[in-house]
Structure formats: C-alpha cells, structure tokens
C-alpha cells in the first residue's frame, strides 16, 4: 500500500542508508589501518610522559608526594584553610585505599590540563586575532561541547585502540573548549583604548600580545583553565571505559556490579580532587589580578 506522503517522512531507502553508513565505516577503517600506527607514533612522547608521571606519583613514597601536593596547594592558593582541608582529603583517600587510583587520575588530569593549555591558548589567541579563525572555530567548539562524548570515543578507539592515549584524547577534546573560548573572550575584552595607547607608542603585534593582551586576559584565561580541569575530572569515568586507569574504573565496576559503597567512595574522591583543583586555581586566578583591588603585598 502506498504510504501517505505527509504522515511518513520521506526517508532514504534502507539499502541506501546502509550503503552510506557502510561506505563511511569502511573508508574510515581503511584510513585507520593505513595511518593508525603513524598517528599513534605521534602521540608516543605524550604517552611516555604520562606513564613516567603516573609512575613517579605512584612509586614515590606517599609522604613525599603528599608534602609536594600540599606545597603546591599552599603556594597556589596562599590559604592555610585550603591546605589543611586538602591534607584531610588526601589522608581520607589514602586510608580508604584509593591512593593509587587517585595518583593515576591526578596524572592524567595533569597531563590533559597541560595539553589543553598548550593547545587551547594559542588557538584562542588565533581566534581573537582573526575573524575568520573565529568563524571557523566557533562551530567546531560547539560540536565538541555538545556531541555526546561516547560518539567521539568510537572513531578514537577505532583509530588508536583502547588505552591511555585514546582516553587522553577523549578527555582533551571534551575539556579544551572552555580554555579556547575564554582565551578568545579575554583578549577581545581588553580595553580598546589601552590597545590604542600601545599602538600610539609603536608597539608591534607581538609586544601588544605579550605585554598587554595576554596579561590583561589572564584572569579570564584562568577561569577557562579552571573550567577545563573540572570538565576533565568529569570525564574520568567515561575515559575509564576505554582503559584509562584511575578513580573512574572502580566507579565503572561499581555500576556494573551494583556496589553502591564502592561507587560512592570513589565518587567522593573525585569530588575531593575537583574541589581542591577548583579552590587552588581560583585563588591563584584572584591573586594574579591584584592590581584590580588591594595594593601589592
């Protein structure tokens, strides 16, 4: 029987659709077979660094690692309360048997954040400098932020298999948009009169970028870094699905086996890390814009 045109959406035939999907998959598979190894080789240095960093955190005596963390936290935030709170959080994490997983998570978050900063700030600068770059990047960032993360896990896994690097890529793709957007925003928000003054004194574009635009955008960029860290932490559970070690894996195990307490402990450990990262990066961000309020210390 002929279907009524308006009640059914005129769709492609099943054959055509299958042909399209299959063609797409086959060509991507061919691409990944051809270039997968090369692309993997590109990420080797990152992998070595990640593994080295993880081993360093896990194999060094825990008191030393803990003291180093607390030192970084104190010098980042300059707040005793945050430092003491962090001390308790880490002690609890250790006592509840999650020290090793936490170190894995810290190492992958650390590397992801560094990568995001390393890639995100230059891209943000480019977007701020060129309208065309902004027009191209904005929709890509929109897609990166809204595409369900499982979807882009598929091609990454097809290309690079399961392991740390695909996990790292997935986290970076998910977490990098805020730092790009906020770098762009921060630079564009710099007072045009100050830039005019720089022009009037004969500053070249590089001098303007490094002496005026980046320093003045720094608080905004820092808000981006903070967001990036938070989003990276949110990805650890999903990343554990493709073999990233850390606090995500016990959570995943807890979901599949219905271990509520196990899920809760590891979940709380992630929350603790998130709060520590957040407080430290925020108070650091506040400190670098001292010129806006109080006098220099």
């Amino acid at each position, binding site marked *: 029987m002929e279907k009524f045109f308006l009640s059914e959406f005129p769709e492609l035939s099943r054959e055509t659709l299958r042909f399209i999907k299959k063609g797409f998959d086959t060509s991507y598979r061919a691409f990944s077979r051809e270039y997968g190894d090369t692309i993997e080789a590109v990420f080797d240095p990152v992998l070595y660094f990640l593994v080295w960093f993880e081993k360093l955190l896990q194999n060094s005596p825990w008191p030393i690692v803990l003291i180093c963390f607390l030192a970084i936290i104190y010098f980042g935030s300059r707040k005793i309360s945050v430092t003491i709170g962090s001390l308790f959080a880490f002690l609890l994490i250790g006592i509840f048997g999650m020290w090793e997983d936490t170190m894995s998570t810290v190492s992958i978050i650390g590397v992801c954040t560094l990568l995001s900063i390393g890639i995100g700030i230059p891209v943000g600068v480019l977007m701020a400098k060129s309208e065309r770059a902004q027009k191209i990047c904005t929709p890509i960032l929109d897609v990166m932020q809204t595409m369900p993360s499982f979807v882009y896990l598929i091609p990454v896994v097809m290309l690079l298999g399961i392991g740390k690097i695909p996990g790292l890529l997935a986290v970076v793709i998910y977490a990098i948009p805020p730092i790009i957007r906020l770098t762009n925003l921060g630079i564009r928000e710099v007072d045009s*009169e100050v830039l*005019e003054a720089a022009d009037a004194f*004969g500053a070249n574009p590089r001098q303007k970028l490094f002496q*005026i635009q980046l320093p003045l955008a720094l608080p905004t960029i820092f808000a981006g870094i903070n967001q990036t860290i938070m989003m990276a932490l949110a990805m650890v559970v999903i990343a554990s699905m493709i073999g990233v070690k850390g606090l995500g894996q016990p959570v995943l195990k807890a979901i599949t086996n219905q271990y509520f307490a196990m899920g809760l402990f590891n979940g709380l450990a992630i929350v603790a890390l998130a709060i520590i990262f957040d407080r430290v990066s925020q108070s650091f961000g506040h400190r670098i814009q001292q010129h806006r309020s109080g*006098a220099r210390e």
Partner: protein
Amino acid sequence: MPEIKIQIKNLYKIFGKNPKSALEKVKDGVNKDQLLEKHNHVLGLKDINLDIKEKSIQVVMGLSGSGKSTLIRHINRLIEPTDGSVVVDGEDVLKMNDENLRNFRRTKTAMVFQRFALLPHKTVLENTMFGLHIQNIDEKEANTRARRWIDRVGLSGYEEKYPQHLSGGMQQRVGLARALTNDGEILLMDEAFSALDPLIRKDMQDILLELQDELHKTVVFITHDLDEALKIGDRIAILKDGIMDQEGIPADILLNPKTQYVKDFVEDVNRARVIKAKHIMSKLNGQDRDNAMFVDQDDFIDRFIDKVISDKPNCLIVKNKNNDEIGYLSTKRLSEILKR
C-alpha cells in the same frame, strides 16, 4: 620664522562602507547631513589644511562630533585618511610602511589620552617605562629616565602603585610622564585634561605650560573648552562638523571671528585675560606723550586696566622687550574692545 613641523593638507576622512565613492560626492558639494541621510556615510573631516609650527602649542578646538579627535589621530596615523596628506618633518606619514610607522611613533611622537589609557596591570613606574620597553631600551636607562619624569610631574613616592589606586589627576600625570619619557618631539594630547575636575585641570595646564617653557615640544592639544584653548594655545584651530572654521592666534579669533559659530563661541570670553597690548595696538602716529602710560607688548589687558581707570591717561604707548616704542593704544579703542 619657526619651521613647519606638521603639515596637514587637504585631509578628508569619511567613515562608512565605501568611503572612496562618498569622497567624490563630498568633493562635489554634498554636505554632512545629506551624506549621512542619502548615502549612509559619516563625514569625519572635510578638506582640513593646517600647518603646525615647530615648538608651539597648536590647539584644535571643537565640540563633540566635530572631528577633533579624528584629526589628531591622523598625525600618528592611528586613523587612515580617505584622502590628503600628513607630512611631518618633510616625510609623508601616510606613505610609511608598518615598520617605519612604528619607528616614527616610537621616536617622534608621544600621546596623552582623555581617559588616560594606562596599563592597569602595570605599576606607575612600569607604565612610565612602557614606551621605552617597546623600543627595547636597556632596563637601567629606562628606569632612570622614567623616574626623572615621574619626579618632574610630582609623583615621587607613587612609583610602585597601580593606576587604580590613584585619583584621576594623578593618573593623567602618569599619562603625561609616560609621554614625556618617550622624548618625542611631538606631543599629541587628546582632550588630555577634559576628564579632570576644574582645579586639577588648572594644575595640569600650569604643569604643561611650565614644561613647555623648558622643553619646547611641538604640542597638538585637543579640547572642547575655549578657556583652556585660550590659556595654552599659541594658535587655535576651530573645528565644526569636520570643517575647519577658523585658525589663528587666540586674540585674532576673539577679535575677528570669521563665522557665526566662532562668534557664538567666543562671545562670553573675558577678553581682558586673553588679549595682549600688542594685539590691539595701532601704529605710532606722533602721539602726545603728555599723560601717556607705558605698557609692555605682552601684557594682557587685565594687567593694566586698573591703572588705566585710576590714572586716566590720554593714551597708552606700547613698548617691546628692548624698551622701543612700537605702537599706541587709545583709551577709546580699549573700551571698545572690552565692551564688545
């Protein structure tokens, strides 16, 4: 005769999508309102010709929207003109490439802005050194030079403060110190004192005049305030709707306003404080020296008017610095000038 430092010739600036075609229309006689209404372009400047003499203060005066800030930005080419030329020391600023233009801005000019435009993340000292840092001048020398000017504008002790912690007047002193530290021959001041309250503004004007006595820069000073223009300008150009209505020495503008606009503008000015004896004297013509009074050519009227009223001289003889008699002034003429 002092040399011409900055020569602005047939300068046009039209804002809009297609300024070149709008330029043709302006040259064919379309006025500002018609241009905006029919062609959707804004006439910024129309056929500006201005010769600015070396080591003098040239004031450009006009109300907001008159194009005065646009004009000053053509001198260091922060704004590209639609047509015309700007020649500084014989070199056409508009023909410079990026590198030459940057060098020109670094070494020849310095600018002071209405809203200070200081770098909020740098201290007073770092702000003052900004121009020198841009030129990659050695840190030690930059520091010495900057401190000298901070001291000169009266900000010693504030070197390590951030601009936000200073009052408006002090911030503009930093702006002035920053410009002077650059040591360019040309000082561009875009409504530099307009954002300050009256007392502070007067202070800053005095500082500028005092510094000018010693430094002899070529200063282009933008203002919307006639009193300020008359006080500091060696010459004044009056802009209205992007057109230069009149240009001349302050007394000339007061005594012979060329357009109704200028006339309205200068109506309420206290002439006694602006006009000097030499501006209104006539040629000596065998005047009777009985009961005459002698005045210096550079005396403002208000310097000698009290004495004229009390002594009731027959006439005033004007003398120059060498004590030569160079002109005379009748009391009748004097009262005419003051009454008008």
